């Protein structure tokens, strides 16, 4: 199937509501052939609804879906034909009360694939997901991780042009998660399958996707590559969602060739930004970009503040340290360095971070 346009799936002005509740509002999105796209957003943001509409399980309240350049009708036989070029792995996948083999073979049989060809393909895919010994087991007797692999096998055996994944690793243990992620990226690379994946796990999006879209409250707030989204969120909501724990209000008081000085309650902070003097902004600093030390060391970092520790919390191998340096900052340091620095409440420390580690965004553009 040759096509001149790189776009495979396109969503135009899509809106949808369940009763009174608007789930998606004026959404536009286009996804290229072979692209891995991650939709990130909190639970209830509309990710599942968007995937269901793209899979043609639901007819949107308003807007159009284009697949491979063709506008998809709101009813009729063509929807089945298009749907058969996609696979959708639902959140909490359900297996049929049949053997593992029959579960995986279903889609091929429905497409009229011959018996021998089906057997060959199913055997191959079961081996790939590591379930070759489970062929004759009833799928209802499998564990959660195994069910997820059956769901993956069942979708992949169809060699879809588009694979839709809804929280593919939610509720799985870390080992199963790693296995599933490995399979997903293997398929994306080997078969050049276009993927649209919904996840609330930002690191998963970062790991697997070429491009990320942030869906908040039914609106696609920002799309871009991982660096764009994580380093330069477009507004406060996105910043919060991607783990920018430090979002501080301030005003630009000077700008010297792209290095802006921001006044934060009497403290001057330097950041890379082109906003003019007088602009009200938010300064965002990722907590892992802040270094803590006991003396004001000389370094290339432009920002160094004397501060007092107000709270220390342990998060596995990391320590989350809240400090007060005229304004509140949160820093993430390894647990070992927290012990070395003897970080505890009222301890005097220096917080240091680079001007490039500060992302400045305009205040009040969150819709």
């Amino acid at each position: 199937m040759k096509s001149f346009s790189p776009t495979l799936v396109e969503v135009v002005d899509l809106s949808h509501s369940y009763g009174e509740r608007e789930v998606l509002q004026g959404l536009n999105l286009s996804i290229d052939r072979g692209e891995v796209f991650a939709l990130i957003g909190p639970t209830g943001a509309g990710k599942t609804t968007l995937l269901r509409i793209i899979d043609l399980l639901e007819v949107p309240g308003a807007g159009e879906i284009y697949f491979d350049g063709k506008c998809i009708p709101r009813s009729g036989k063509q929807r089945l034909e298009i749907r058969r070029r996609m696979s959708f792995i639902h959140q909490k996948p359900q297996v049929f009360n049949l053997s593992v083999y029959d579960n995986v073979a279903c889609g091929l049989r429905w497409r009229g694939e011959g018996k021998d060809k089906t057997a060959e393909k199913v055997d191959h895919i079961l081996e790939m997901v590591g379930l070759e010994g489970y062929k004759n087991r009833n799928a209802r007797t499998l564990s959660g991780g195994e069910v997820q692999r059956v769901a993956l096998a069942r979708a992949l055996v169809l060699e879809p042009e588009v694979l839709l994944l809804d929280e593919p690793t939610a509720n799985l243990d870390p080992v199963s998660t790693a296995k599933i992620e490995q399979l997903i990226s293997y398929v994306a690379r080997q078969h050049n399958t276009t993927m649209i994946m919904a996840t609330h796990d930002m690191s998963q999006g970062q790991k697997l996707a070429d491009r990320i879209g942030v869906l908040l409250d039914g609106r696609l707030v920002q799309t871009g590559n991982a660096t764009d989204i994580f380093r330069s969120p477009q507004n406060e909501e996105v910043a919060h969602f991607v783990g920018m724990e430090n979002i501080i209000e301030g005003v630009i008081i000077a700008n010297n060739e792209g290095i802006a000085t921001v006044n934060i309650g009497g403290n001057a902070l330097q950041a890379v930004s082109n906003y003019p003097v007088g602009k009200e902004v938010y300064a965002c600093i990722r907590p892992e970009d802040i270094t803590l030390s006991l003396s004001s060391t000389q370094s290339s970092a432009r920002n160094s503040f004397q501060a007092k520790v107000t709270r220390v919390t342990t998060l596995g191998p990391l320590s989350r340290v809240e400090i007060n340096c005229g304004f509140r900052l949160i820093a993430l340091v390894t647990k070992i360095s927290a012990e070395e620095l003897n970080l505890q409440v009222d301890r005097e420390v220096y917080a240091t971070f680079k001007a490039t580690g500060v992302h400045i965004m305009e205040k009040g553009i969150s819709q």
Partner: protein
Amino acid sequence: MTEIWHGLTKAIELLISLDPEVMEITGRSLRISGTSCLLASLICLPLGSLIHSHHFRGKRALINIIQTLFSVPTVVVGLFVFVLFSRAGPLGELGIFFTPTVMVIGQMILITPLLLGLTISALSGVSKEIVDTATSLGASGFQTVWLVLREARYAVLAAVIMGFGRAISEVGCALMVGGNIKGATRIITTAISLESSKGELELAMALGIILLFLALIINIALNRLQQR
């Protein structure tokens, strides 16, 4: 008490000796009820799937009516079939009154609501997620319906067995439209009714025990099937 005891011994005697008349009556009962249950299933399973998978106005009311008809008296069905098929009735020309054929028709009418209602509720037990999964995997409307029927197979089978049970145990309709003719339309239940009124309690009880025995065999077979 002695009558019950005699009934039991007589039943065992009849069973062991494979009494030709008892065997003939039992065989006819199984044939007529089996046929009516099979034919009713052929109608009710697809029709039930159709009703289940479509949304239309009055669906709830329709299901309520079907469920009400679960308890339709067998003699009312008998009366209805009588009116239709007796010599003077609109279908009297067919000349099937007082034959096993009309008994099959009567039992089909009797158990259709039960089979239909239980099929619909069996299919309702299949989650919407299963339907969505099938649709996502590329099943057409018909393929989805077939899969849902397979997912609910044990509950559907139980519905069929219930239908068979009601058919083989009813007496009112069979008596009214079959006529309890010896060697032609006499079945276990009509025979019990006749023998009791003649005072032949032992034979009546023996036939009753055979009927229960049949039910037991069917249930064991069903349980085996469900555990597979």
